[in-house]
């Protein structure tokens, strides 16, 4: 099942590559149609998934290179499930939104589909070597997507993206190899199997070094302040589809990695380093929001808002409470949906006006009321309006973090004010007033195709906002299992809800 999930986009890419050269108009529709197959598979996966189980499901494995203990081993749990579905949803949408790609369309579709395969691979991999292969493989299609179809400074942005993330993963590879070596030392045979590595006995200082090596790779991906500057450049230059997938899914590799590997493989280091991560998360939340306020470019504004939103995920993850972890996971999905939608919307206006400068617009709600409606809806989802999805993640994270990180949670809550400021101020400048620039007066409102692209996202935003149980029920057992593991392997105790006294006593003791 999972192997099929990875293979179908690859096969799809091959099919598109083989399409006759004289029928270029087919590339995109065929690509969209083919990307619906993994979507259907992901749908099956979601509904077949046994709710209430913490462990990995749909396991498959095959030996790859026995002497080094490398195997092909895949599975899904509540944490990766949502991300897989998110990927499967966003790919057809971003392909369908790419009609303005006017050259080398075939390659474009191929790269997007290969990227999808890589993303599925990352989320299902249960062998660290396999994980690393997919983790790196993703860089290549993304590099080309930015470098070929990007804006003016696309080469600079693509190289920066590539090198920056590659430097981080080099350290991670070293750490992965080190883990395998230690496994060999402790048991006699090397292994990259996640389950095997969990059984390793690592001293606190080793844990800390390895945590740092993994953590750097993931922190760049998230990105965590101050490692975030590749992000705005990459987003501004990337074509719409690239931005949607970059913000929607690629950034989650970082937060997913922290949750999946750092918390479980290095529990003691996690507990020791909570404060460092919490500080960086909170700085990211406030700093990203603050910087977003004054961005003159709409796309850059959304990019910096990601820095802020991802900070919530990091905070929730390292709060080490039920609410925090669940909130972090669901915020990954939610951010993917709303920020993905915002990038789509920015792309739609860019196609019409060939500018993303806020100052070039004004009064758009008058000429494009439907567009304005969608934008405002997604802006409020991003602001964290209760009833829409963004709130669920933020609220879970904030309330969940208060028990272990009260001060940071309070500062983070301040970030919700900033979100309202940067998005509503941008909305005011772009959409309200009288459309006095002649270029803006002739703009046409959204087409049926564009509405069809956005509609599924609107539905998901509402469903997850009002009935997040569909996802939370699947997420919770897996995040609880991580917390259990931390409790068992360290002397950390997850505070019981409803025990305020514990919070401040614990705080007083320096945790």
């Amino acid at each position, binding site marked *: 099942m999972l192997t099929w999930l990875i293979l179908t986009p690859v096969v799809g890419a091959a099919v598109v590559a083989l399409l006759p050269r004289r029928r270029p108009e087919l590339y995109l529709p065929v690509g969209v149609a083919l990307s619906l197959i993994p979507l259907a598979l992901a749908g099956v996966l979601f509904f077949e998934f046994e709710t209430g189980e913490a462990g990995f499901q749909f396991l498959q494995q095959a030996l790859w290179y026995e002497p080094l203990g490398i195997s092909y081993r895949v599975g899904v749990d509540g944490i990766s499930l949502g991300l897989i579905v998110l990927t499967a949803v966003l790919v057809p949408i971003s392909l369908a939104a790419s009609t303005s790609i006017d050259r080398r369309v075939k390659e474009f579709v191929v790269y997007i589909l290969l990227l999808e395969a890589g993303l599925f691979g990352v989320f299902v991999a249960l062998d660290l070597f396999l994980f690393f292969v997919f983790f790196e493989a993703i860089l290549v299609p993304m590099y080309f997507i930015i470098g070929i179809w990007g804006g003016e400074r696309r080469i600079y942005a693509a190289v920066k993206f590539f090198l920056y993330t590659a430097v981080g993963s080099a350290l991670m590879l070293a750490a992965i190899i080190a883990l395998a070596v230690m496994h060999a030392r402790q048991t006699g045979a090397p292994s990259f199997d996640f389950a095997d590595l969990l059984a390793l006995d690592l001293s606190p200082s080793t844990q800390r070094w390895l945590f740092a090596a993994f953590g750097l790779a993931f922190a760049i991906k998230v990105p965590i302040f101050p490692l975030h500057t590749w992000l705005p450049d990459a987003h501004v230059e990337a074509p719409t589809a690239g931005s949607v997938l970059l913000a929607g899914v690629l950034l989650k590799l970082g937060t997913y990695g922290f949750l999946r590997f750092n918390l479980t493989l290095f529990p003691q280091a996690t507990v020791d380093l909570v404060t460092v991560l919490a500080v960086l998360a909170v700085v990211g939340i406030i700093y990203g929001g603050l910087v977003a306020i004054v961005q003159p470019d709409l796309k850059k504004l959304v990019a910096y808002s990601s820095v802020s939103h991802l900070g919530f995920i990091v905070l929730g993850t390292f709060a080490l409470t039920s609410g925090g972890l669940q909130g972090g996971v669901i915020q990954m999905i939610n951010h993917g949906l709303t920020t993905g939608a915002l990038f789509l919307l920015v792309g739609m206006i860019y196609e019409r006006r060939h500018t993303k400068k806020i100052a070039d617009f004004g009064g758009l709600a008058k000429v494009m009321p439907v567009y304005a409606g969608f934008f405002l809806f997604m802006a409020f989802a991003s602001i964290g309006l209760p009833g829409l999805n963004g709130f669920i993640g933020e609220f879970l994270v904030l309330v969940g973090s*208060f028990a272990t990180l009260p001060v940071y949670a309070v500062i983070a809550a301040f970030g919700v004010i900033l979100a309202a400021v940067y998005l509503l*101020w941008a909305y005011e400048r772009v959409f309200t007033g009288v459309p006095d620039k002649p270029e803006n007066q002739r703009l046409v409102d959204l087409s049926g195709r564009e509405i069809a692209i956005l509609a599924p996202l609107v539905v998901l935003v509402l469903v997850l906002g009002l*009935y997040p149980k569909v996802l939370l029920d699947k997420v919770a057992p897996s995040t609880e299992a991580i917390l259990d593991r931390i409790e068992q392997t360290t002397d950390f105790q997850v505070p019981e809800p409803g025990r305020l006294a514990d919070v401040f006593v614990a705080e007083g003791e320096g945790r």
Partner: protein
Amino acid sequence: MTDLLWLVIVLPLFGSVFLHFFGRRLGEPVAGWVATLAMAGSFVVAFGAALPFFRGTGENLQVVLWEWMPAVGATFELTWDPLAALMTLIVTGVGSLIHLYSIGYMSGDERFSRFFVYLNLFAASMLTLVLAGNYAMLFLGWELVGLCSYLLISFWFTKPSAAAAGKKAFVVNRIGDFGFMVGLMLIFTSFGTLSYAGIFERAPEVLDTGVATAIGLLLLVGAIGKSAQIPLYVWLPDAMEGPTPVSALIHAATMVTAGVYVVARSAPIYQLAPFAAGTVATIGALTALWAASIALAQNDIKKVLAYSTISQLGYMFLGVGAAAYVAGVFHLMTHAFFKALLFLGAGSVIHGMADEQDMRKMGGLARHMPITAITMGVATLAIAGIPPFSGFWSKDEILGVAFEAGGWFVVLWVVGVVTAMLTAFYMTRQFVMVFLGEPRWDEGVHPHESPRTMTVPLLVLALLAFGGGFVNTPWRTGLEHFLEPAFEGVAVAQPPKELSTFFLLGGVSVVAGVLGIVAAYLAYRRPAEAWRRFQESLGAPWRWWEQAYRVDDLYGALVVAPGKALAERAAFSFDLRIVDGAVNGVAWVVRRVGTALRPLQTGFVRNYGVVFVAGTVAVVAWLLVVGRGI
């Protein structure tokens, strides 16, 4: 009927969704009627469900609908007790009248049906807020009414001032929400739930005074934002950019009272936190006086009412802060009647005067708009606290409790009485400037009475503004009795019971009111030049009031400008030059080193490969050395 409780929210919600998709096709006025019927239907259901409470046989209900975020104790859950019932009846009742009125007021607007989409959505959100059975769902309603407020204030978004006002309202409210949210964190961490049922019963055993005070103050921060109290009231005067029915419904009768409702709802917590409660009362009294003084000198008919609303909300805060929950909610109700009436009357005037809002250009309108004039007159007497109009009873109950509470509260009582005098003054001033004296209209203005869809709500509200106070008088404490089950286990402060004290205190405030009325009448009954001279004779204070103490400028200089400067510094100096500069600096050094080592090779991917392999080897080797100790 209580089984159908969900319909109370769903009817207007459905109306909103339906009109969103089909409103334009239905057009004017059908779309308005659909929305009005949805609202009226909601009222009927609510009334049916509230009947047992009127009979004294009702039971408090707590209905869980579905789980929302179990990990932090958030569920969709409704509560139905007399407090919720009263609020629901106010929202749906006054809401229905204002919906009806809007059909006339908004006629001819090109986004007629859109207006009702938002209005119905607002009603559904407000009902969510009052029917919520836990703090998370309350927060849901709380934020959704903020959204609707945003949408409706900037309804005429092509006007930059309207768009800016909407944003300002939302952002300022968010500052309050920050406090509210931290309050919720503290509640959840203390109780392990956000459900009223799980909190209020256990509050005395779980909370010590410190935590109760913290929660009380944090909830107060939220309430201050929503109910426009010092220091977060600045959004409400700007909110007058919205269509007038919006001002009546959202910014007078319902949404802005949400803060009062939250304090009343959280009575079991405030009961444990006298300091927090005292802060509520003090902020309320100060706001009442502060805003009333600004209202004295406003010339825009709606601005007077906006500051008046802030001031009256201050009274309600004084009430609930003094643990006079019944009195506070009582004033919330009578205020909903007379202030909605005042706004709708003002709307009728604006409508009849071809969108003129400057009272200096009005005068003598009573002859041309008799129904508007008479009904607004009733409302003016009600807010001025003249018996037997409704405002007298509720305001005096609050003042009575404050007086009775003694100590610091006596100071607040004095503030309240002075405010009562100012209130009578500015309201009479408004009435005289608008309806009496010589016409001072612009050329081409032909004032006329409004259509029946607008005057009928005025008449109904006038009846309520007149008689609404009789539900709770020293002789018949009907409302107190009605609300009793909602405040079980809470010591609700009572106004003085002896009639002599009542007459004495009542007499003081009536004298204050009459003084205000007479002074304003004498000053403004004269021709325009005369009252201009009167205003000038007051000198600097008058100019301060006229400019609302320039608080907006102060906030601009203290918060907005430095905030923006900081953001710019962070974005353009720090982020681009320092953080990104460091990154590019490293890249530059690496490239220089690379170029020096391998002058022929330039491919980036190659660079990457070298860095990658070298780094990996080095780190693995090093880790193995370090790891030897394992």
